[in-house]
């Protein structure tokens, strides 16, 4: 079983035999891999009907639920890790969702498309058009992605809300980590991956 590069990095960060929640799990690719390869006990959360069916077909426990309604049904610290993969930008209340994730899990893994990427800047800054990329393929008037941010924006959100960043990986448009990404992540990173937890008080 091979995973997309960004999912493979997430999978690497997950502790074997741990309990996880994958928010916006899609068809359950990540969970299927983690259950098979790392003995992880996990649940997916998904709202889209066809994806719920596909995840069930895969044998993944999936709970049909709207993330915009919060995570009230999941108790405090009831899982080790909460994953939110390429979904933060589509949520109505990203900050509240992030804080809810940190309530439910000990650690959270968040990935999102970086709007600071040079290609997005080029499209908006030079061409004067709203950016459309491989990760953000929608037109401005028909996009589920309503809360786009840059790497700097996200890190400032973490800073302001007492969220500690434990690890960061930035991938370019070919889903690779290069020296340019490390040097200027907000310019050369197309997808950003974070491991975070609440700062110790």
């Amino acid at each position, binding site marked *: 079983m091979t995973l997309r590069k960004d999912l493979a990095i997430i999978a690497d960060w997950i502790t074997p035999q741990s*309990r996880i929640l994958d928010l*916006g799990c899609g068809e359950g690719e990540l969970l299927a891999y983690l259950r098979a390869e790392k003995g992880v*006990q996990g*649940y997916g959360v*998904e*709202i*889209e*009907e066809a*994806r*719920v*069916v*596909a*995840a*069930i*077909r*895969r*044998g*993944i*426990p*999936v*709970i*049909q*639920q*709207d*993330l915009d309604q919060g995570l009230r*049904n*999941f*108790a405090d610290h*009831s899982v080790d890790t909460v994953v939110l993969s390429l*979904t933060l930008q*589509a949520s109505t209340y990203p900050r509240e969702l992030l804080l809810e994730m940190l309530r439910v899990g000990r650690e959270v893994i968040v990935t999102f498309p970086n709007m600071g990427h040079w290609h997005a800047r080029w499209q908006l800054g030079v061409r004067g058009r709203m950016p459309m990329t491989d990760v953000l393929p929608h037109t401005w008037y028909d996009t*589920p992605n*309503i809360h786009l941010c840059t790497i700097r924006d996200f890190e400032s959100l973490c800073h302001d809300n007492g969220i500690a960043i434990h690890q960061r990986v930035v991938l370019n448009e070919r889903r690779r980590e290069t020296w340019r990404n490390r040097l200027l992540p907000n310019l050369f990173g197309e997808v950003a991956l974070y491991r975070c937890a609440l700062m110790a008080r």
Partner: protein
Amino acid sequence: MRHYKNRFAQAVATLSCGQRLARLDSFSFPYKTKCAMPAEIPADSVGLVTPQTVTFSAPLELECGRALPGYTLSYETYGTLNAQRNNAILLCHALSGDHHAAGYHSMDDRKPGWWEHLLGPGKAMDTERFFFVCANFIGSCKGSTGPASINPETGTPWGLDFPMVTVRDWVKTQAELAEHLGIAQWAAVVGGSLGGMQVMQWTMDYPERLRHAVVIAAASKLTAQNIAFNEVCRQAIMTDPDFHGGRYYAHDTKPRRGLSLARMIGHITYLSDNAMRTKFGRDTRGGKAFSFGFDVDFEVESYLRYQGSSFVEHFDANSYLYITKALDYFDPANAFGGNLAEAFASTQAAFLVISFSSDWRFSPERSREIVQALYTCNRDVSYAEIEAEHGHDSFLMPIPQYVAVLRAYLGRVAEEVGA
């Protein structure tokens, strides 16, 4: 993911009003279409089926402390039990249901079994892969022992001397049926409404005897409002002058008005406001002007009266009393100080929980409570909340997303057991 609700609204809007009515008509309100048995049985039906009975002569200790001196179960099976005997699925029926889940009893049958839309060759519950068993529960009146059966001690019908039976007792009798059929472990136990309660009880009482539990449009306990509806139904029956303290059999009569009223009340609660509005609106019978009297003016009155009076012909009023009580009493968390997660702690099955958006008698909120409890005690659980406009009755209907979820889940179960 964000467009989900919009897309649903669009899908509904693109159906013309006529199409929507036709869809409702086709499976929701058979009284108008008077569907006669087709000349040929459809290829995706299990076809002609013959009910079977089995009698257990040993006394059955009941939860209420009393015992039944033996009992009979009426049941049907569909599909073939494989050599490993591991492809069996138990179906649990609801209040007014019975063992006749699919197919026809004769070529003169007007209607097929209650889960015909979902159960048959190639359907979501596929009789080509699984062996299905459905038994009428005791206390009912469709061939299994109930208050209308003869009490061996008196030689007359039990009436209200019949002991109170509970969901737990039903599950016990189904376990005895499983032994009788040589089924050590069900691939799944599936049920809707009161049937879903039996499924949950199965996972708690016989954790190692089922692999999967499919709980549809159910609740872990009735709300006060729900018990209230049941009580009104019971009062309607018990205050009918023809009730005779439950001994109406001896008077060669039955509490028709009471039972009919109970069914009418039930029917209102099984449908959604929208479904009734769509179907009946304020249409008058035959488009006639108001009568300015108390006979039927509106279509909805006519429909309810028809439902009530036809129900009386095939259902025993005492059974209605006993079954609604079993519903009211069901509350497995009660023994654990109200903690449902603790009640599920002993279970081993994987769960699929399904609810319907417009179901207000067993609302999605009740299903979410079940899911939350299962999550808390680390069970594998999937949950689907189906957008549907037919209220509680949705669980009987071939709603595409509902069918897709069931098919996906049971497809997985089939692979797991090699069926």
